């Protein structure tokens, strides 16, 4: 039971992390109609920045703040230099151009930081288990990831639904020409939205950094999951991304933890232990296939696109 609760929390934490990536993707897609494969590179850059800056300053929090700002700047620069030229183009162009960007970012990181991975050590106050329920302990760091991510999700909701900027963002998503015609600086708005998405990706990366090793290609693995989430949730829908991210995070984590045991009840132990790893990593793709067959536009489609 303790294990089950812990794995559920792990699933929730992973899901929330995926949500931050997926939110940026879906925001950029919904508003600029842009497919950004290089979103995973921003996740990687966030992690590298955090590892480097915390080592420089000697403070975890300061390093994290600087990394966040750094990723925001990289994202906005990326928008101004490259992405801006891709709006209104074919999706195939987006895929190719951002694929080129991935190659560029991966290699630049290799050039600067070398091929070996980095690690981001946790400060001692985050590196201890806390008691969440009587008798049940959970990692303080993972708990703080859950809290921060939830705060970000709420903040994002308030930003999009309750502020003037959010109103412009939503207006831009439904009719960009009209918003431009009404005198809104749409170029600046796009740069800001892209920067916001980049910062979210960077935040996800730097929060994941102390748990995993910071390495080249870390973004490519997770970005596919983020895409799966945006597709399941319905492209352009932040609410859909949230629901789908939690789903995927929990299913993936619980699947990896308990699926082998479940399989052992049906199959022989030998067959189960060979099939389990493959099948549990297939689960979420299976989920996506089922959702797309039943609802080809995703669960919460953002309407006519």
């Amino acid at each position: 039971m303790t294990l089950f609760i812990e794995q559920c929390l792990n699933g929730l934490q992973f899901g929330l992390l995926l949500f931050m990536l997926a939110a940026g993707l879906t925001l950029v897609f919904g508003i600029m109609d842009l497919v950004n494969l290089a979103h995973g590179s921003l996740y990687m850059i966030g992690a590298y920045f955090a590892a480097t800056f915390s080592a420089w300053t000697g403070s975890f929090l300061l390093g994290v703040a600087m990394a966040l700002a750094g990723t925001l700047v990289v994202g906005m620069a990326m928008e101004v230099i490259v992405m801006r030229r891709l709006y209104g183009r074919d999706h195939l162009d987006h895929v190719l151009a951002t694929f080129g960007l991935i190659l560029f970012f991966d290699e630049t990181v290799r050039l600067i930081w070398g091929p070996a991975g980095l690690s981001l050590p946790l400060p001692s106050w985050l590196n201890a288990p806390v008691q969440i329920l009587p008798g049940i302990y959970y990692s303080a760091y993972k708990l703080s990831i859950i809290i921060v991510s939830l705060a970000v999700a709420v903040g994002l909701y308030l930003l999009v639904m309750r502020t003037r900027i959010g109103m412009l963002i939503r207006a831009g998503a439904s009719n960009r020409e009209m918003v431009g015609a009404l005198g809104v600086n749409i170029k600046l708005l796009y740069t800001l939205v892209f920067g916001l998405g980049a910062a979210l990706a960077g935040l996800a990366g730097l929060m994941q950094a102390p748990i995993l090793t910071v390495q080249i290609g870390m973004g490519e693995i997770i970005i596919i999951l983020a895409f799966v989430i945006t597709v399941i949730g319905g492209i352009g829908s932040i609410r859909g991304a949230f629901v789908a991210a939690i789903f995927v995070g929990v299913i993936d984590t619980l699947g990896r933890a308990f699926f082998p045991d479940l399989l052992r009840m049906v199959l022989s132990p030998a067959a189960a232990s060979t099939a389990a790893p493959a099948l549990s990593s297939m689960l979420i793709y299976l989920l996506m296939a089922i959702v797309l067959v039943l609802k080809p536009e995703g669960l919460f489609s953002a309407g006519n696109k």
Partner: protein
Amino acid sequence: MSDWLSARTLAVIVLLAALVLLPVYVEFTGNRFLLTLFTRIIILALAAVSLNLILGFGGMMSFGHAVYLGIGGYSVGMLAHEGIYSGFVQWPVALAMSALFALVIGALSLRTRGVYFIMITLAFAQMAYYVVAGLARYGGDDGLTIYKRSQFFEPINLSNKTQFYYICLALLYASIYLVWRIVNSRFGMVIQGSRSNETRMRAIGFPTFRYKLTCFVIAGILCGLSGALLANHTDFVSPAMMYWTRSGDLIIMVVLGGMGSVIGPVFGAIMLLVLEETLSGITEYWQIILGPLLLLVVLFARGGIDGLLGKVRHA
């Protein structure tokens, strides 16, 4: 047709002839590496030609085309691992498995369109990738070494590099011819019609889904053939054959060469792989050049090489 010998036609003829004559050049200079490199280029060009059929002509933006490379390759590899070396078994199995997978993937994916289609094909390819990586019996993550290439009857010996090169080349040319015939047939017209305006095609009474699915399966089979060749070429198969970056490479080849031209992907494959080879000779960090180069092609040379050649004709 006074200008039938345009720059484009000329370039195509020169290319096709040069590929036929390459082993002769290798024989004179003794540069065996060139033969290996170009065998690889030809095999991947075959995969790109098959992708072009659905991407360039059908407008189906599959981001998981490398999955058939893996399926074709693993069909050969697994059978060889089980002691079945006959190419008369291995190759038909490779083609049939590719067809089967393409049928299932296509039947599910073609219900969606646009970005959803890109993503769902990508997801299916990743799914296959994880399944293969989990197959401990066949090497899992580490891949599977093939100790004996596919066996055919007497004079044909795939271990002979020159012979293998010509077999790959013949299959490439045959595939190009096949795609050319398909594209110019009534079937091909329907496919191209549904790329431009699917609603209208349906309104005239064409069941476009069935047409597109058939086209998707044909492309899968051709790419599976390429996978079987690739497995024989490298004597090794691994999950990396169907990783999503490989699918990206195939798209790059198609776009570099020029979409919707039957021969374009061959130009694209040569250009990408030769570029990779040259750049990696100059610097260890060659992708730092390739990435932005790709970006520039997308931004400024959308028609690819074939488009540039076409412009020369008009000038």
